[in-house]
């Protein structure tokens, strides 16, 4: 379901999606500079799995295909390999734009359903923000159980050998279940993130005010 802010955005930008992206998406102000050479699209390791490669997404943004872009699974295919960034003749930070679009689609409540990377990414964020550092074990288990308990058991059984290997190699520790690593100044850490989130929300919120 889409969010209220989504409606506000639609209202505000009246079909000028390029402007909306420029104002609100991380590094979105670069999108206008694309000259459609397609080097990014050809450079992506998971390219074949993109419904719309970056250069095409940029064209769709100019063509005001808001719905199609924000609900696309494409930007969730980004592995952050930076091939596109390194090769782009116009210097677009494409990796960041993909991250930005993905995040924005979430914020607008238009993210694709059951997108594994979206789910894992959220888990990762929750996991790291909880203690300030990632708890790999919980993250891993969380991953396996993301599609419900029964699924999870299946998956984790399948991954048992892997898990044991990792424990043997002392690269996964059951101790992590209890407590595990974290930052000492946790309250400060959380306050910091909260503040940052407020500021960002404010920026978008202020953009949604009627002119």
């Amino acid at each position, binding site marked *: 379901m889409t969010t209220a802010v989504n409606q506000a955005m639609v209202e505000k930008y009246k079909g000028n999606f390029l402007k909306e992206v420029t104002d609100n998406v991380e590094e979105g102000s670069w999108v206008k500079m694309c000259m459609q050479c397609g080097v990014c699209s050809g450079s992506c390791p998971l390219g074949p*799995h993109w419904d719309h490669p970056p250069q095409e997404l940029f064209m769709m943004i100019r063509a005001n295909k808001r719905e199609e872009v924000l609900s696309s699974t494409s930007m969730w*295919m980004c592995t952050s390999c930076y091939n596109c960034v390194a090769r782009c003749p116009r210097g677009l930070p494409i990796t960041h734009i993909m991250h930005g679009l993905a995040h924005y689609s979430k914020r607008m409540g238009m993210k694709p359903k059951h997108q594994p*990377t979206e789910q894992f990414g959220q888990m990762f964020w929750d996991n790291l923000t909880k203690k300030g550092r990632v708890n790999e074990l919980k993250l891993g288990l969380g991953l396996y159980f993301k599609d419900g308990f029964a699924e999870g058991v299946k998956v984790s059984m399948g991954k048992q050998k892997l898990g044991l290997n990792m424990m043997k*190699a*002392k690269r996964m520790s059951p101790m992590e279940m209890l407590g595990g690593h974290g930052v000492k100044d946790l309250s400060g850490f959380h306050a910091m993130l909260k503040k940052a989130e407020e500021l960002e929300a404010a920026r978008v919120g202020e953009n949604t005010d009627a002119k």
Partner: protein
Amino acid sequence: MAKHEYSYYPGCSSQKGASSSNLEKSVETLCEELDIKLNPIPDWNCCGASIGYAGGGELPRMTLSARNLALSEKHHPDQDVVATCAACWLNTREVQERLNHNPTLKAETNIALQSVKLEYKGNKKVRHMVEVLIEDIGYDVLGSKVKKPLEGLKIAGYVGCQTNRPFGIDGESFENPMYLDKMVETLGAEALTKYDKKVACCSGALMFSEPEKGQALVKDIIESAYDSGANMIVTPCPLCQANVEIYQDDINARYKTKFDMPVMYYSQLMDVAFGRSALDAALNGNIIQSKRLREIADK
């Protein structure tokens, strides 16, 4: 007082009992050998890696690395920040560049940092451990430390993505970096310089969310190593190491391959070549062992 001191950002996966603790251990050993002191940034936090964007917006993610940098500025004012993890290094360096480039973002970040009574200035040099070895130590010194040349090892140097792009090691090409091969040769092993997957992507964090897609990429990476006659892959990146090493069983199952390719860290090779024990080199930290490397370590 050590010859070289740095403000060290270990990152989550290098922690005790974490997925690249063997990198951590082997780097420790390496630093002893080279008289390098790594001072961990007090109370550092996660950098958000490359997958944090789903949950975290731009600014919150910026503040993560900004906090680490601010802590380093405060506690290790005259020391470069050094990271061993590709993602940690990339995020930290990138955040500094982006903040210094974008006044609004920098201002907002500092507002957020007030909650932890820190201020981010952005005057740090953020470096990768490999840069320290190449620029501050140098191949000659590294070579001079070699007690047990790694003869018999045919090594595919797998650089991966984030150690290489968008910044890369100074003076190296994005498409064909040579430093890993040079290191390998310095240690007396054979570098397979024509290995054509050296900068291919291992799928990074998507290995967890899109295992089939990820393993398809890793399969090519290992296959090409075999094709070039390798009996070992070496990498500077923890996520690359994990992705390429630990899923070989799954890949063998899925593709009917017989992969059994050791994937080591450059630091582990150095430890062994410098005469340190298998334990010091954290060889036991690898799921797939290299017999040859062990022989050399144990002899």
